[in-house]
């Protein structure tokens, strides 16, 4: 990211930034000149920092055994979601994989909902019934995290179909990783979406490792933006929130007019694939620390804010401190929420419970459920 030489002091003043060139497949790429302002940059900084701290808190809660089972963290990839949300609105729909904690935040969900869901509590995004991989926010068209690699992609094409059928002007974002990009169902979904010109944006978050396997070991072509064949694609610097915002705005316009487009976001996850993966057996520690030093999405925005004199460094430190406190409060609030009612075991399987009942550990106690 090159920064223009002019500098501003007012948050509302326009700031112009040159982003890295996009690589394009079967389409003329958007301009690399992106406009923003201090207010927007500050918002990006806050949201990304909040996401980062939330994932770090989840890591600690996991290690303290408050969170059990499966948990996939998003830190490092924040610019993708934050840039995306800056270019779209909540009438557009999103469906994603199991790495979904921050998607929930991006869609306007709360940290308490995320944290409580992680711990299986009533205040959780799916009432404590799903856990890490299952955040949902219906009011803002977030169709959730999915547990099966790639299974959300055809569903995303279906969301696009509904947008088109209803003529509501919305687009559907089907998000998946470089690992899932080799799943057969992705190509079935793309074919149908292209055939029927559905407003679907296939977002491949390429963090370069499908679990423990490097992209080039799993994919004959790891130029995922070209793998829509007949559908256009862009490769985007997914560590640069402004590059993402610009590309997503471009893609939304294209998708509404002409059908599906693939956005490959070149990004990086700092944590391992899941909590059972230390993340250091298949890549070097140098690679991770270089990424943190050179391309960290939050640090890039911090630099812009300081270079353009939108805020003082000390201001940002204060913001960080306040956000850390917010995260801590959310954790406490989530911990205070009770586990789901026993009756939830039988709820929501069918619309009605089909007369199901549960009983205690022996035959003498029987509890009818609502």
């Amino acid at each position, binding site marked *: 990211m090159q920064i223009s030489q002019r500098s501003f002091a007012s948050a509302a003043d326009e700031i112009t930034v040159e982003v890295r060139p996009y690589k394009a497949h079967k389409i003329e790429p958007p301009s690399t000149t992106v406009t923003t302002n201090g207010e927007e940059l500050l918002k990006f900084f806050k949201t990304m920092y909040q996401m980062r701290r939330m994932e770090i808190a989840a890591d600690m809660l996991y290690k303290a055994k408050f969170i059990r089972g499966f948990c996939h963290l998003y830190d490092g990839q924040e610019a993708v979601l934050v840039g995306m949300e800056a270019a779209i609105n909540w009438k557009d729909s999103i469906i994603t994989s199991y790495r979904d904690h921050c998607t929930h935040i991006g869609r306007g969900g709360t940290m308490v909902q995320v944290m409580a869901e992680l711990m299986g509590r009533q205040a959780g995004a799916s009432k*404590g019934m799903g856990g890490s*991989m299952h955040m949902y926010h219906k009011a803002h068209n977030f169709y959730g995290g999915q547990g099966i690699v790639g299974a959300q992609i055809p569903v995303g094409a279906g969301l696009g179909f509904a947008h088109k059928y209803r003529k509501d002007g919305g687009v559907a974002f089907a998000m998946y990783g470089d690992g*899932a990009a*080799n799943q057969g*169902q992705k190509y079935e979904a793309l074919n149908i979406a292209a055939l029927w010109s559905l407003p679907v944006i296939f977002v491949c978050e390429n963090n370069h490792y499908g*679990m423990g396997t490097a992209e080039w070991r799993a994919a004959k072509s790891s130029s995922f933006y070209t793998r829509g064949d007949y559908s256009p694609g862009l490769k985007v610097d997914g560590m640069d929130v402004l590059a993402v915002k610009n590309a997503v705005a471009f893609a939304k316009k294209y998708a509404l007019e002409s059908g599906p487009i693939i956005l490959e976001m070149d990004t990086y996850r700092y944590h391992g694939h899941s909590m059972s993966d230390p993340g250091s057996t298949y890549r070097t520690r140098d690679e991770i620390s270089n990424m943190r030093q050179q391309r960290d999405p939050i640090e890039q925005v911090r630099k812009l804010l300081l270079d353009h004199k939108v805020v003082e460094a000390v201001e940002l430190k204060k913001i960080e401190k306040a956000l850390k406190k917010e995260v801590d409060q959310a954790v406490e609030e989530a911990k205070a929420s009770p586990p789901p009612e026993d009756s939830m075991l039988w709820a929501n399987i069918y619309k009605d419970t089909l007369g199901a009942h549960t009983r205690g550990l022996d035959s003498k106690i029987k509890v009818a459920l609502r």
Partner: protein
Amino acid sequence: MKDDSRAMLFGEDVVFGGVFRCSAGLLERFGKERVFNTPLSEQGIVGFAVGAAAMGYTPIAEIQFADYIYPAFDQIVNEAAKYRYRSGGAFNCGGLTIRTPYGAVGHGAHYHSQSPEAFFTHVPGIKVVMPSGPAEAKGLLLSAIRDPNPVVFFEAKMMYRTAVEEVPTGDYTIPLGKARLARPGTDITLVGWGQQMGVLERAASVVEQADGISCEVLDMRTLLPWDREAVEQSVNKTGRLLVSHEAPITSGFGAEIVAAITKRCFLRLEAPPVRICGYDTPFPLVYEPVYMPTEAKIVDAIQLTVKF
């Protein structure tokens, strides 16, 4: 893999040993031509394995969790299982073994806990094997790999980290299709497989001490084909039958056993056969302990059945 140069092992991240370290050290011993990682493509993994098996190889394919086997369902049901039949015996994929970890693990929730064995027992042409411990796993896995039919081999996920047992060294096989008498008894027959065996045996000890009830415990080992004779023989002796599995009760494999044994042993039964299984719910996150066919539920059912 030492004896069969055509044997190869592949799946997601198996080169590093896989999620549960099952294949640790195999790369070093057998090389990257025979031990290799695949993309995250379950349908592709099984399709590829079926093709290799049809060419006379012995593919040992891993699906990382049984919950991920559904994208490969078509390849297993329509390609692998029917290859021999639909080609009039010209082709087969008998060398194929699909290994996959199944079952509850304490906190796995919807997509890392399921027991999908019953789906596969509905498919003539494949075998379904579910070992109940480390030594059993070794003996049955070697038999599954050598069996001239495609085998789906479900490994008890909970036991990867909890089971401690002496395992026979060297070549060791256990025949497929034969049940194991885990505990002889006279009052009721308890039937299970996989990691549920430990629960059944503990329940048997509890009722023996508390009520003097003598349970005969059978480990099915193989669900397709299953050892009807062993269960029939036992139920003819005890007059009572309890089947237990983690999968939801409705259309679980317990239903098949109960139906077949009721017909075969009708006049010998002293009580209605009973099934203690998972509930008909998706596998729950925080309510796993409620969902599970626990020792206490089995003890209760044994007592009621014996008193019937």
